[in-house]
């Protein structure tokens, strides 16, 4: 067996780790250059001396590339074309982008209620033809996850009128929620160019170092996919997912715990229940964009070891931004890292400088060791309290997850005995205060400072296929990809349908280079369709997953 490489690009530092046969044989942190993620990743790979490691199984990267581009609004413009039909007013929800609406309506089973208007399509084509630069087009119709007909038809029409135009269809994100599906389609199309360039450059850089190892990208749901198979928008917020996986790779199987990863800029909090990370019921939110990107249920708190500490009229405030590194390593503003250093809870940074930094926050007549110590303790306490509140919120959210079946309600939230798995640079500094505040066993993970990179390196590919089958209309669809097809089986298929889905999943998995053997099956729902007291068919919903997880445990 060869080596696994994990790179997690964080806000302040990029963690890098090389794992061989389960043992960590190289680990380190490289400062992140947010302006140049690619160089940062290459620097991390060089640090790991990949050129000397010929047998690398995988390089797995968790990157902030797309997240940053979305938040900094550097993505190219996309023209959004919607078929909203009737229902709630589009203006009821905030659209962070402008859109054009077209006539044509579909109902919840994908039946056409109103046909589109060809004259509108013609006008649209003429308008696009006149534009000097051809826009990117995201086309989304309400209920296109039930029937992609309008989207496909319009795309074909525009392709014939304006050949070569780049388009993306909402039905390829076959989840329900027109609003989120529209914004997800938009973001993915907008990020595609950026991501393709990134992938090319990364491949080239690796080749120049004689490395041909496959590169995988970590997704928000904690799974990985090959660099050239991932949909760019799925790579958002993979940092928190890396934290959760990192804890999983360093904890015993089947345990339930809260993951707290304290970075320089942010603290990520996640939840693992009986060895499985909790998935959010909604999709990820990226800045003003609500998406249906599947993600782990995590909270990212903008507080970390490098948060600036400010005193305002005697009140100590932890700012939700950082102003350079901690005072004790040459920064200009005192931070929790300084407080932790001063209390000797870590040996990172210079003790005297930490003291110096803390003194700047004290009134001139109170600059002595006793007051500095009190101040440091208060800073740690404030940070602990912020983290504790965020943990409580996440637990609250988990308990408020909706349930749609009698069985689910009666088996909701079995009592889990939770502990805390703590990681990240600032972790040793708050371990005891956090344990006390939460009244939970709190454990520092072994390779705390590079836990995220370990998570990335050891992440499993994830995979989820959800079938929606309407045997009355003889149509099936796959939610994750929008694939549609005809159903030729019986009207009340029962078990046949599970085999049908399994076959589809296996063939798709192999096309992604994923082993689809350890599939988990959800309970399938069968809804009888009754008309005039006769059963005319069934609507069946079922899903199979390879859930997120890690390929093994790190050996000590």
């Amino acid at each position, binding site marked *: 067996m060869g080596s696994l490489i994990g790179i997690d690009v964080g806000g302040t530092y990029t963690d890098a780790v090389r794992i061989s046969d389960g043992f960590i044989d190289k680990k380190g942190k490289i400062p992140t250059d947010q302006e140049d993620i690619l160089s940062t990743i290459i620097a991390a790979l060089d640090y790991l001396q990949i050129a000397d490691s010929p047998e690398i199984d995988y390089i797995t990267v968790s990157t902030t590339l797309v997240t940053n581009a979305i938040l900094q609004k550097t993505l190219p413009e996309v023209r959004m074309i919607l078929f909203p039909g009737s229902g*709630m007013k589009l203006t009821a*929800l905030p659209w962070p982008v402008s859109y054009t609406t077209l006539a044509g309506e579909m*109902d919840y089973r994908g039946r056409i209620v109103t046909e589109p208007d060809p004259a509108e399509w013609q006008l649209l084509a003429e308008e696009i033809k006149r534009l000097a630069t051809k826009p990117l087009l995201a086309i989304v119709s309400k209920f296109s996850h039930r029937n992609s007909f309008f989207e496909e038809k319009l795309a074909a029409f525009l392709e014939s009128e304006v050949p070569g135009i780049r388009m993306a269809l909402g039905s390829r994100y076959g989840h329900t929620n027109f609003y989120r599906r529209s914004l997800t389609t938009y973001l993915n199309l907008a990020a595609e160019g950026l991501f393709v360039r990134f992938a090319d450059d990364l491949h080239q850089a690796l080749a120049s170092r004689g490395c041909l190892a496959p590169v995988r990208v970590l997704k928000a749901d904690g799974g990985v996919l090959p660099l050239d198979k991932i949909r760019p928008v799925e790579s958002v917020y993979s940092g928190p997912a890396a934290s959760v996986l990192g804890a999983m790779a360093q904890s015993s199987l089947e345990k339930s715990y809260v993951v707290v990863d304290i970075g320089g800029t942010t603290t990520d909090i996640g939840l693992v229940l009986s060895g499985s990370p909790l998935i959010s019921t909604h999709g990820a939110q990226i800045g003003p964009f609500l998406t249906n990107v599947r993600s782990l249920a995590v909270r990212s708190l903008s507080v970390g070891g490098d948060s600036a500490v400010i005193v305002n009229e005697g009140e100590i405030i932890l700012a939700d931004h950082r102003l350079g590194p901690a005072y004790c390593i040459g920064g200009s503003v005192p931070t929790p890292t300084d407080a932790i250093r001063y209390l000797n809870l870590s040996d990172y940074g210079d003790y005297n400088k930490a003291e110096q930094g803390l003194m700047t926050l004290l009134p001139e007549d109170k600059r002595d060791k006793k007051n500095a110590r009190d101040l440091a303790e208060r800073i740690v306490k404030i940070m602990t309290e912020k983290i504790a509140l965020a943990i409580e919120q996440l637990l609250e959210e988990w308990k408020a997850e909706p*349930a749609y079946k009698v069985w689910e309600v*009666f088996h909701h939230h079995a009592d889990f005995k939770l502990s805390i798995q703590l990681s990240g640079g600032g972790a040793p500094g708050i371990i005891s205060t956090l344990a006390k505040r939460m009244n939970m066993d709190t454990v520092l993970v072994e390779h705390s400072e590079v836990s995220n990179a370990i998570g990335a390196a050891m992440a499993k590919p994830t995979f989820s296929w959800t079938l929606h089958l309407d045997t009355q209309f003889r149509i099936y669809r796959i939610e994750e990809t929008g694939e549609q097809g005809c159903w030729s089986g019986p009207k009340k298929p029962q078990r046949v349908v599970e085999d049908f889905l399994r076959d589809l999943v296996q063939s798709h998995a192999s096309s992604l280079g994923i082993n689809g053997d350890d599939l988990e099956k959800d309970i399938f729902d069968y809804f009888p369709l009754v008309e005039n007291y006769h059963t005319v068919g069934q609507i069946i919903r079922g899903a199979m997953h390879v859930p997120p997880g890690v390929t093994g445990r790190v050996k000590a």
Partner: protein
Amino acid sequence: MNKTGVIFFPAFDWSLGELHPEREERLLYTQEQIFEEGIMDLPQIKQFSPSVADIGNVLRTQAIFPGPKNHSLDAHLIAVGSSLVLGNALMNQEITNGFAMVRPPGHHAGATVWGNRGFCTLNTEAILINYLRATYGIKRIAVVDTDVHHGDGTQDIFYHDPNVLFISLHQDGRTLYPGTGFVEEKGGPNAWDSVLNIPLLPGTGDEGILYALENWIMPRVEAFKPDMIINSAGQDNHFTDPLASMNVTARGYGKITERIKPDLAVLEGGYSIEGALPYINMAILLALSGEDYSGVIEPQRPKDKALHGDAVISYLNDLRRKQEKVAPSWNYRNDSFLPEGKWVYNEKSIYYDTDGFNEHRKDYIRQCSHCGGTVLIFSQKPSAFQKGVLIRIPFDACPQCEQAGYDLAENLIKSENMIMMQNQLKNKVHMWHNGEEVSPFGFKN
């Protein structure tokens, strides 16, 4: 802006049978519609998690015979529990209003329960109301039941309760289940005029219902000065409903909701699974949350001729004159086991359509000018040779009525083998089996 709480509990794994209208698919398309619209992403909407009601909350309001264990209540307890979650959220001011989009329904379940009637076993709204009174001390509550069927169960539970105004709009009982809900039913001797029934002509439509709401119902509600308004939001008035023949549209339901301004709405019936429910639920939700619902348009259009405005209005005006003229008349009984006081007596038979049997009831009410009065109900399921007794001491009971309740229990323990007492005043439930006091199942006194 309103903050609207929602619990969506479609009970996808529960039904009364494959060919039954109350089946698992009932809210499937509602889910498709509201999730696809992104309604749950509206900033003013907060989705809550369903919860299971404690049986004690049920027994405070309904006597379950022979006992709760004899019924399969799981799904019903979740429908009830979910509405209590919203009740709590409302009282904690987490929300300004709420909609429990739950099944199964409940408004045909009455004060005594031997089985399932009209798809109902537990009365969600009634249990909710008494929970809010017992827990938060709410005094006066108005219920507007907009299901196409008469809310006979809710009426039965609150018939003697002067602090609950029950108003039911429904298709005339001569043409529709359960065959009750006439203008003559106006409340018991201590709660006269706390019940208002408005039987409507088939085909009444949006216009007629809105006329009744504006000119009759809402003025009546306002005069009552309730602390809270609950809407039993049945959706079977829709023009596509297979069980009824009113002519109401989804947008009509939006307007109805806007006029009633319920603090809490609870889904009741509605069996046009494809044509009505997704659209009405959406319209109600949007109306509650203060959003524009004018874009909610069903694919089908009403095809029956709606009754014309004038005809409906003159029918309603006649009906109102008739309703106002109804005068009370009571039968008194003086049986040996009755404590001191004047006792009004009434007999009735209740048909359980789902299970096909009758319940016979003998109701006694202690006439009282100070409180709602003690209620005594002898209930029989003759087909099973079973009998149960319910004694209810009302909220705000006067000392004489509370004493009368305990005297009744003492007298009847000797002759009756199953007695349940709801002491709503003290928030206690007692049960006696064969002369012995037993703990009501699962209920912590």
